């Protein structure tokens, strides 16, 4: 490090130090640097040590508040609120709302309503020749044209003349809402699918979302460390199902919210729902493992138990406790122990008195009275 950079380096390192100790810390290191230089020491390596010294003196990071998910009701309520938030955001963002409406107001296909009638006109360059017109069998006076976007430029409602016939453009087809077959460039009537469109249309968002969920359900038990035995031992399947069910709208509408950034909704739903579902369902199982099988509250007071060198007759791993005193959950750290995975140690009701919050609040004054 070049000599003139030593002091700035110390100043940068001092920014790590808590404000109340910074001045004293910088004064000591600056002073020592002067002596290191005078004695011909390695000032650069000396300054490098300042960062190691400064790091433990950093101010404490602000604690990140954990979402309230201790009780099952809190957990389900939070997931429901998250789902509602993603739905609201999806309807608030214009592009996401447009995709949603296109999905929800999907027109029904009535194959017998249309028939090919005759050639009408030439389309602009990109669309090729306008060869056929699809005309509803139940054509009424006043029906208009439905044209694909490439063959007409203007707002719906305009009067156009095709082969000398004046008619009104009532709608432009969209990529998802009302597609015409390749051979058909315009249709008369309301927006609907001609008979052979059903085979050509791309699958909708919901149609691609549901298989992704199914695939994620298959992948999660295989990809995660959770064995099938653990899952079978899990109780309260209703709670798991409720969590998973509440996460489905979060995943779907959350991926729709991403459509706001201009990416194709189908691609987004395919990607985000797939990976999102894997992580979400894995979280469902992991969260279940950290809950009391009796009351479904989150287990607390995590402590490490044992030592890895005592694996013969002992075990080592993590122990967590039900806040209501229903029992202890032992989670082994390695597979060489005499039990693997999780082990629930139920406590009989005689232990409850230790966990009763009313007793704890009453005990303090009594204990205080005994203090001489």
């Amino acid at each position: 490090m070049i000599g003139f950079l030593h002091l700035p380096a110390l100043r940068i390192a001092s920014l790590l130090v808590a404000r109340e100790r910074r001045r004293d810390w910088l004064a000591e290191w600056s002073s020592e640097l002067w002596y290191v230089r005078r004695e011909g020491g390695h000032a650069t390596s000396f300054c490098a040590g300042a960062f190691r010294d400064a790091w433990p003196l950093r101010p404490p990071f602000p604690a990140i508040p954990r979402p309230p998910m201790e009780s099952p009701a809190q957990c389900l309520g939070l997931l429901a609120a998250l789902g509602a938030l993603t739905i609201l955001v999806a309807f608030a963002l214009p592009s996401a709302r447009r995709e949603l409406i296109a999905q929800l107001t999907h027109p029904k296909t009535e194959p017998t309503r249309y028939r090919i009638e005759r050639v009408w006109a030439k389309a602009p360059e990109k669309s090729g020749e306008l060869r056929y017109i699809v005309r509803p069998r139940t054509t009424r006076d006043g029906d208009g044209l439905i044209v694909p976007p490439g063959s007409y430029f203007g707002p719906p409602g305009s009067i156009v003349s095709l082969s000398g016939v004046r008619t009104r453009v009532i709608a432009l087809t969209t990529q998802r809402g009302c597609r015409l077959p390749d051979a058909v460039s315009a249709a008369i009537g309301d927006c609907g699918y001609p008979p052979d469109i059903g085979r050509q249309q791309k699958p909708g968002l919901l149609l691609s979302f549901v298989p992704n969920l199914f695939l994620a359900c298959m992948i999660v038990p295989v990809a995660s460390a959770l064995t099938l035995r653990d899952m079978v031992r899990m109780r309260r399947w209703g709670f798991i199902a409720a969590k998973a069910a509440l996460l489905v709208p979060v995943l779907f509408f959350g991926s729709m919210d991403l459509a706001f950034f201009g990416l194709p909704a189908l691609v987004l739903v395919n990607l985000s729902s797939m990976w999102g579902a894997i992580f979400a369902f894995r979280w469902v199982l992991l969260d279940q493992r950290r809950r009391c099988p009796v009351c479904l509250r989150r287990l607390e007071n995590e402590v490490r138990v044992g030592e890895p060198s005592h694996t013969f007759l002992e075990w080592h791993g993590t122990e967590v406790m039900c806040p209501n005193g229903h029992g202890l959950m032992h989670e082994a750290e390695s597979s060489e122990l005499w039990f693997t995975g999780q082990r629930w140690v139920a406590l009989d009701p005689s232990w409850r008195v230790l966990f009763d919050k009313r007793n704890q609040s009453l005990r303090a004054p009594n204990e205080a009275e005994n203090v001489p």
Partner: protein
Amino acid sequence: MSIAANLSHSAAMILQAIDAGHIYGFSIMEATGLPSGTVYPALRRLERDEWIRSNWEREAVAVAEQRPPRKYYKITRAGRTTLEAAQKRYPLLAKLFPVESRT
């Protein structure tokens, strides 16, 4: 578990160096051969545990000698007890830094 058992060998060396009269950071580095990234954090921990205490040199003295003031470290009574326990654990420790002066 004894107090000395909680003391690492590096910390014991630094404590011994301070007791031997190397009473500021760079001097301790030179005496022990430890890098600054080890010596100064160890000094913070020893001071936190009240085994050493620090005080700044009077500025007038340093200015008179045309140098910046230094921060001096001094071993406390608790620190000396800990050092004696550490010397029993690490018998060669006392021979590393013979005591120059003890004021």
